[in-house]
């Protein structure tokens, strides 16, 4: 057993290069020469991307630039036509990353309407982890709605349930596919804060696909601009958290927005 571990250790890269900070629960993602075709339509082409464990990456771009497809590939909902996506745990480097470590929050909540809020968050979870979901519901502020049906909740509340459901599996990677797109501005701000707070606490790697540049600047460590299946540009967001909309924020937002518009 120890021999095996040592072998893994020597093969894996050193922790520092993988992880944003040493305490990260997250997994690193390396994407190499990724291609995705739908029939003759080329969606992603020769894409390389390294994401550190615990990093918060936002992917922006116009509609049809391939950002959702990239997310779905990382989520293993679809297979690449060519190329590879590697996942690597930072702290638990001995363990491989499986599908169970990756969770997706979709554009719409995709809650099961025939299950109560609490039961929804327990979907696919082992019984001994059920306690955990109640805590998560409390964290997203819906403890008193645990026994409600999803149809009785507002759009924002439903997305919060979806967030609790995703996090109940203690994922190493959380993929967010424009989850706040359909929410009103105020609810959206609250959700952004909630996502940031939980990301801080739980240390997963987060990848957010969004068309909202301001949201990307608000949340991400790094913003990737995708254009016709290529990475056009990458922006580091060196702003202190929690972020306030000061001059630096606005300047970066403007810069990213112009780059998006130029594609």
């Amino acid at each position, binding site marked *: 057993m120890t021999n095996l571990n040592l072998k893994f250790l020597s093969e894996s890269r050193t922790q520092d290069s993988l992880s944003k900070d040493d305490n990260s629960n997250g997994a690193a993602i390396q994407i190499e020469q990724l291609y995705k075709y739908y029939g003759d339509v080329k969606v992603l082409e020769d894409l390389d991307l390294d994401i550190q464990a615990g990093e918060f990456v936002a992917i922006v771009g116009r509609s049809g630039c391939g950002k959702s497809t990239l997310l779905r590939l990382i*989520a*293993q*909902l679809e297979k690449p036509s060519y190329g590879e996506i590697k996942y690597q745990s930072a702290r638990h480097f001995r363990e491989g990353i499986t*599908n*169970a470590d*990756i*969770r*997706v929050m*979709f554009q*719409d909540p*995709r809650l*099961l*309407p*025939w*299950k109560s809020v609490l039961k929804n968050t327990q*979907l*696919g979870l082992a019984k001994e982890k059920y306690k955990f979901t109640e805590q998560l519901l409390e964290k997203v502020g819906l403890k008193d709605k645990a026994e409600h*049906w*999803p*149809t*009785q909740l507002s759009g924002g509340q439903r997305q919060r349930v979806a967030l609790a*459901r995703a996090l109940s*599996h203690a994922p190493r990677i959380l993929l967010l596919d424009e989850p706040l797109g359909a929410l009103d501005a105020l609810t959206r701000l609250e959700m952004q804060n909630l996502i940031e707070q939980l990301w801080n606490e739980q240390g997963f790697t987060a990848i957010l696909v969004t068309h909202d540049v301001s949201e990307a600047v608000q949340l991400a460590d790094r913003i990737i601009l995708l254009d016709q299946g290529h990475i056009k540009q990458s922006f580091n967001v060196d702003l202190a958290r929690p972020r306030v909309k000061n001059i630096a924020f606005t300047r970066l937002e403007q810069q990213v927005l112009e780059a998006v518009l130029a594609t």
Partner: protein
Amino acid sequence: MTTQNVSRGTQRIFTNLLPWLFPILLIVIWQVASSSGLLQSRVLPAPTAVVSAFWHLLISGELWQHVKVSAGRALLGLLIGGGLGLLLGLLNGSSRIASTLLDTTLQMIRNIPALALIPLVILWFGIDETAKLFLVAVGVFFPIYINAYHGIRSVDPQLIEMGKSYGLSRWQLYKEIILPGAMPSILVGFRFSLGLVWVLLIVAETISAQSGIGYMTMNAREFLQTDIVLVGILLYALLGKLADVFAQILERYLLRWHAGYQK
């Protein structure tokens, strides 16, 4: 305040009684027409005569005997035909191979009215219980089959994708997502079948039977006992309504998550 409560109470009683107003009026007219001799009792006996015939049949135990036999046939036929319909509907809805193999055949058979099979059924099974059960079973098979099939096919593929990405096994996927998703449709088929079961039974019991409501009415016809014929007809109406109420209660319980069933 109290007057308002009282008026609201009377209003509620009024709206509850309103649907019965017309039937009651009809019975009153009927009674008046019969007693005045306008309506011959051979054509249509007075309501009081029908009630007294009902009462005599009830205390002699004859009525209960016939109802028991008919209800037993309805239930068993429903169980066999509905069970098979559900099973095949679920199978064909879930498996493309099964549906390609079987659906065309079933759709073809569906267009044969169950009652057109009567001569063949009599040749096959003679005139005993099996023939009646067969007719009922064939008749109720299709509504349940078609609705189960359609229900499974129309389960939101996004929910299924979510379930898969949340690591549900095939069985869990079926139990947690596909089956509950198809339930509203399955229940529509069930309710439709419940209505159909009585129609089929009436015909099946009038061809050849030694017991059952159909037999009772046919027998009464031989002796020109129009009052008993009417009791039989009204019994079918009553049992049909009872079955429908049961289906409604079932629906309200199983679909309590549905927005349409919440108060």
